[in-house]
């Protein structure tokens, strides 16, 4: 089975928010909510500063705390490449998954259920990239099967320096950032 993941090159990302807008449009994300967003980190002392711009979203963790805490199984690991998903008509809106996610990647949809990035699985099923990846003007985002050694994502992870978010949480995130 495939194990989908994302590799994002922070050296190419300019923070244009195209990915954010593409996601809002593709997934009809309710106004005032975001399934993906831009984080900017500035480190160092002037004049030797460094900046990292990241397009962030649900990390579709290999060890997802949001799935473990869900009382109904609404939060689940899908058979399609291990994408972490929410079944809206099984979600009771208890918000345990929002509290359990160290990344704050989830929100409560105005209709009441927990919502978040799906890696655009409806597009992935058709062999397309997620909307955010497909619109990126700098081509800094890559999507694919981490377990396939021939895939772009696996190759990039073998040949580049990368980090994930909060690895100390033990969630084993599948969104990687090249630095």
């Amino acid at each position, binding site marked *: 089975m495939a194990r989908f993941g994302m590799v994002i090159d922070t050296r190419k990302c300019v923070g244009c*928010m195209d990915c*954010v807008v593409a996601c809002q449009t593709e997934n009809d994300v309710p106004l*005032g*909510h*975001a399934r993906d*967003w*831009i*984080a*900017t*980190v*500035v*480190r*160092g*002392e002037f004049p030797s500063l460094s900046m990292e711009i990241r397009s*962030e979203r649900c990390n579709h963790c290999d060890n997802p*705390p949001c799935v*473990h*805490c*869900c*009382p*109904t*199984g*609404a939060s689940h690991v899908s058979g399609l490449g291990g994408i972490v998903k929410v079944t*809206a*008509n*099984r*979600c*009771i*809106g*208890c*918000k*345990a998954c*929002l*509290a*359990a*996610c*160290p990344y*704050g990647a*989830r*929100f*409560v949809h105005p*209709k*009441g*259920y927990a919502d978040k990035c799906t890696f655009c699985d409806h597009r992935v099923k058709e062999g397309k990239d997620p909307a955010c990846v497909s619109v990126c003007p700098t081509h800094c985002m890559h999507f694919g099967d981490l377990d396939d050694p021939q895939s772009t994502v696996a190759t990039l992870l073998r040949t580049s320096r990368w*980090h*994930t*978010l*909060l*690895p*100390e*949480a*033990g*969630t084993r995130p599948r969104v990687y950032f090249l630095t």
Partner: protein
Amino acid sequence: MLEFTTTRHNPQVDPVLSVWNWEIPLYLFVGGIVAGLMILGGIAMLRMARGDDTRGYFSLHAPLAAFMLLNVGMVALLLDLAHKLYVWAVYLTFQPTSPMSWGSWVLLIVYPLLMASALIRLPEAWPWLARTVPAIKRWSDALLGRPERIRLLAWLNIVLGVALGIYTGILLSTMVARPLWNVSILGPLFLVSGLSAGAALLHLMSVLLPPKRPAPQGMIGGALGALVQPLGPQAPEKSAANWLIRADVGLLAVELLMLGLLLVGLLTATASHAAAFDLLMSGRFAIAFWGVLIVLGILVPLLLQALELGHRIAHTIVPAALVLVGGYTLRWLMVNAGQVSGIVSTAAR
């Protein structure tokens, strides 16, 4: 220097998590009291089965009050849900890794158990019910004359009470993302606090019971009487109330010890846990923690109750009321400060 900016501004998530407001602390508080009442009621039932009516005094009131309070808790829980119409989905599955799933199923067993436990002595206290629904009288008779059945119910109350009390803490403590919650002592701490609050509530009820008045006979009067009046014309004997005060002194001391261990545990763990420690010790929750929980909710009632037991001051309801205030404050603090606490990372962020 490290500067972090984000374009994300999701409601209830940013700038800090605020998904749970007053409903969940109230539910955890009430759930804790119910657990405490089940354990204390179970002990009272064991005494009753042995024919010790003085100490078995609370065998009606504990399950009855627990049943009423559980309904309050369930309403609070339902109010918190964002997708209320789908609440049935909890009972279509069992998720072994989810404390909430365990809790939902435990509650499903607790309901009929509390009802059965309350029904043992309800016809005695509420004659209207016994006359109108003879089946309840038969059920009560089938239990009253059979100590072994009462003992079984008593042990079920105790075991499920411990499960319910611990679950209210484990519910929070399994979440790695919230360092303040992610400590193993939270389950036992909430259990002990629930026991202490349960003892305080029973104590309050036993003091407020109108003494030496014949039980009201009607439908509504009888129902209220069953909850707030003593069984028969006698008020509880002093030893019954003293039993609760003595238990509460011990429980408050254990709770204080556990809070101390919680703080030591947080301080000596990771940087994230140390930051959570600061939230309670000197941050924006410090006044609630030190002033309301430690001093008003534990130390003052501990002192007053010790003096009461030593016959140095008169018995009042003040310590019991303060214990209840402390019990709610503990849940309020943990739920709110826990949502603020998060993983502190110096590497990736």
